[in-house]
């Protein structure tokens, strides 16, 4: 009996608007509890929601980037249930007419490219947070997050395994960060994922009953939760039982999924159109403006880097796939002529430092300006590549200005040909044995002479000039 896994993902993306979906409270992360809460977010009697247009614009960017239908007229519905972090006792969401309809996204998994269909993406408000472990016998409610705009992206159940699920999640994350609609910071809950898993036999026409695992916010946990769930479901099905359609939670400590308590039992959400919110209309002009100003996506960047800047394919892909690196690249290129050198250093030395410290570029002390200075000083031969490496390390630690470091440490490359020639001549004079040995055929000793000149000049001699001069003198 071969079991086929069928997975669908619902990803909740926190849109990076400044204010909330229906109120003017701030969406900023990490504030003191209950300080980013407006009357509307508290659900006080008599308050009314007013929709944030920017949330719509951001949702539309997603729709355009996934070639999706954009519903220029969309409406809001109420989803009714009781939970302490849901102040109104209902969530405002879009059931009937979501802002974004069917679209597609390309993923790379298991060495292959696959297209996943997206069913829809709609706007809804986030709930607050329940803090369970701070107080004995009580749960604390913080409504800072309540009302933050979410874009819920629903995939078709076309994902076949955990690797594809992660690839899909990563692809969505890449799109939303590149589109500047979400900061993609998983640790802050900017993206959360509900995973629907069901099993079917390969020749079954119908899908099996699915279980929904809610609110996973790390790639590792998605993978583990899916693995556990597949195992659990197969065991049930093979023993003749049936899988219950239910909501489950993934426990990362015990590495298991378990059924959520009766909160979800028999929950009839009684959706109906929200009478406080009239339909929102996006005009043709607004749509065109958004389309015209759509930020470049990785695929487009990669193509452009290769065709216009003539980068190598591999370099282009690496730089284009990270928004922070692409930003650094593009900014630095504005300030120096040597784009290819910028790319080389980004992909090489800078990436090595990023990996060592396990951070993103925008978390480092390296600024685009400073990076551009470094590249400029290599291009104009002020410093050698080797010296530049040490300068970069200094910048990485201190954030100090490149030119100042070069000056303070006297790292300016020695270019003066006559000076170098004198030094070279002296080295040759002082080392007659090596000279003879070299002339006698020990070619490798050339490195010795280069090394000696470098030592004499504290590494500051221009290596190319040293090579040329020594060749001239020795050959």
């Amino acid at each position: 009996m071969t079991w086929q896994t069928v997975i669908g993902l619902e990803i909740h993306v926190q849109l990076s608007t400044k204010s909330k979906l229906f109120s003017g409270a701030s969406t900023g992360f990490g504030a003191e509890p209950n300080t980013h809460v407006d009357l509307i977010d508290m659900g006080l009697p008599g308050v009314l929601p007013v929709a944030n247009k920017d949330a719509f614009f951001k949702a539309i960017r997603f729709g355009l980037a996934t070639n999706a239908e954009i519903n220029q007229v969309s409406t809001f519905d109420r989803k009714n249930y009781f939970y302490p972090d849901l102040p109104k006792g209902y969530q405002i969401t879009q059931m009937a007419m979501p802002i974004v309809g069917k679209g597609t996204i390309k993923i790379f998994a298991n060495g292959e490219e696959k297209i996943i269909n997206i069913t829809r993406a709609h706007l809804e408000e986030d709930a607050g947070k329940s803090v369970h472990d701070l107080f004995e016998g009580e749960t604390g409610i913080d409504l800072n997050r309540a009302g933050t705009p979410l874009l819920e992206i629903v995939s078709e159940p076309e994902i076949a395994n955990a690797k594809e699920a992660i690839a899909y999640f990563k692809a969505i994350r890449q799109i939303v960060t590149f589109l500047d609609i979400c900061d993609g910071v998983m640790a802050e809950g900017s993206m959360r994922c509900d995973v629907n898993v069901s099993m079917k036999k390969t020749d079954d026409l119908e899908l099996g009953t699915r279980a929904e695992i809610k609110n996973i916010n790390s790639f590792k946990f998605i993978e583990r939760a899916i693995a556990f769930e597949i195992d659990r479901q197969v065991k049930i099905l093979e023993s003749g039982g049936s899988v219950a359609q239910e909501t489950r939670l993934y426990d990362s400590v015990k590495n298991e999924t378990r059924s959520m308590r009766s909160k979800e039992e028999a929950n009839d959400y009684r959706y109906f159109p929200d009478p406080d919110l009239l339909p929102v209309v996006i005009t043709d002009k607004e749509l065109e403006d958004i389309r015209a100003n759509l930020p470049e996506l990785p695929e487009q960047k990669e193509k452009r880097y290769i065709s216009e800047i003539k980068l190598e394919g591999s370099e282009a892909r690496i730089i284009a796939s990270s928004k922070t690196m692409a930003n650094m690249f593009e900014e630095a290129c504005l300030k120096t002529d040597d784009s290819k050198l910028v790319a080389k250093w980004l992909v090489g030395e800078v990436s090595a430092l990023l990996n060592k410290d396990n951070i993103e570029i925008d978390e480092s002390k390296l600024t685009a300006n400073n990076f551009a200075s470094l590249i400029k000083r290599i291009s104009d031969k002020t410093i050698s590549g080797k010296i530049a490496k040490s300068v970069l390390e200094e910048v990485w630690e201190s954030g100090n200005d490149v030119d100042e470091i070069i000056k303070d440490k006297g790292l300016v490359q020695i270019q003066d040909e006559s000076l170098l020639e004198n030094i070279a001549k002296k080295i040759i004079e002082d080392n007659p044995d090596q000279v003879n040995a070299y002339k006698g055929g020990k070619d490798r000793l050339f490195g010795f002479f280069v090394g000696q000149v470098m030592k004499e000049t504290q590494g500051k001699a221009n290596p190319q000039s040293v090579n040329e001069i020594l060749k001239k003198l020795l050959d």
Partner: protein
Amino acid sequence: MSIQFKTIKELKKMLQSKEISNKEMLEDTFSLIEDNKHLNAFITLNKEASLKKAENLDNNPSELPLAGIPIAQKDLFCTKDLRTTCGSNMLSNFIPPYSATVIENLEKAGCISVGKTNMDEFAMGSSTETSFFGNTENPWGQGLVPGGSSGGSASAVAAGIVPAASGTDTGGSIRQPASLCGITGLKPTYGRISRWGMIAFASSLDQAGPMARTAEDCALMLNEMCSHDSKDTTSLDENIPDFTKNLNSSIRGIKIGLVKEFDLSKLDSDVVKVFEESKKHYESLGAEFVEISLPNITLSVPTYYVVAPAECSSNLSRFDGVKFGRRCENPKDLEDLYVRSRSEGFGDEVKRRILIGSYVLSAGFYDAYYKKAQQVRRLIKNDFVAAFEKVDVIMSPTTRGTAFKAGSMGNDPIQMYLEDLFTIPANLAGLPAMSVPNGIVNNKPLGMQLIGNFLEESKILQVAHSYQTSTDWHLKTPNGEIS
């Protein structure tokens, strides 16, 4: 000279001519409130702040349109730092941190909010018998209901305690009590008055409005109450006219529609007589009566009793004992907190409507009830659109009869629901409508209803005013006529 039973217009004159100071006027108001305590028209009084405001006005006179006029506010409007209960135990300790737009508008126009008036709990009722704070009495007779849900406001105006009050109308809650108490009450076009701060019952039906002694005073109030409010996306952006401007225009040639489907033969003969008299009077003023058909109008009440409970079941979910309002004692867990806080906090009628509302929205029933009702609602609206191509205003009795005895509607909720059969259609269609006193039967007042087309408050006010300048039903008081 007593301020009792005076209109806004009259009180303004008294203040301007310095016949009475602002402070004296407010002191008299509070004396009247005290003397009429048995009516139980008020839940919370705002005495200290009111007297202070009046004193300030004496020192710094103001030209504002309602400067110094004492107004009673229905306890459904949030008033900053002043308890707001909605007639419910659930909010019996609720002090809002903000004021409703309509309250701010009225206060910016200079009026003094003397207190919050009693009402059916969460605006659900037609008799002000479901308030946690006890029944309100109709000044026209002991043990008589004032109507509802704006019973406290109606009673206070009818007793001459205040010249005007704010009310709200979802299925007739301004017009029906106005009729039963012999005063004038108007529900404007849906969206004319901002719902920000108005505690929601049924969002697509609720509208605030003035209750006063005359159409003219209603117009004065309406001028100040209406505004476009960006905090309420259902708030109209239309031009707001001066509603007093056309009051005196002649109604000669105006076409008044009579609804064929309102079978008046089913009403008490005395009630029919009152209505016929009014018709005759209008004919003498030059109006022309036209029979119109609103084929779906008899479905208004069942439509309403699907839509309103559905919306209210959702609107009242926020009353959960968690963030504000009453919480039950010693909840043993979250479920217990919810269930007991809500069951203790809400009265029976509210619970009934929440249950109906949840039912008609539930999976499997949504299409048959809620969706169906919204479709019938559109048919009703379309009927009105067609009718207004033939007539300028539509006229009907406001209520089936006069004020009934408290407790007499028995245990059948549907009997109470049918009280609103004339008033509900205007809410479903979002049209402006008002009740104008037009008779007295067995020493109990009656009102007639005028329904206008979308945005045509001025027209119904004009038709009402022409009636009031040639009749004196609106001048009658529970203890005899005043000049």
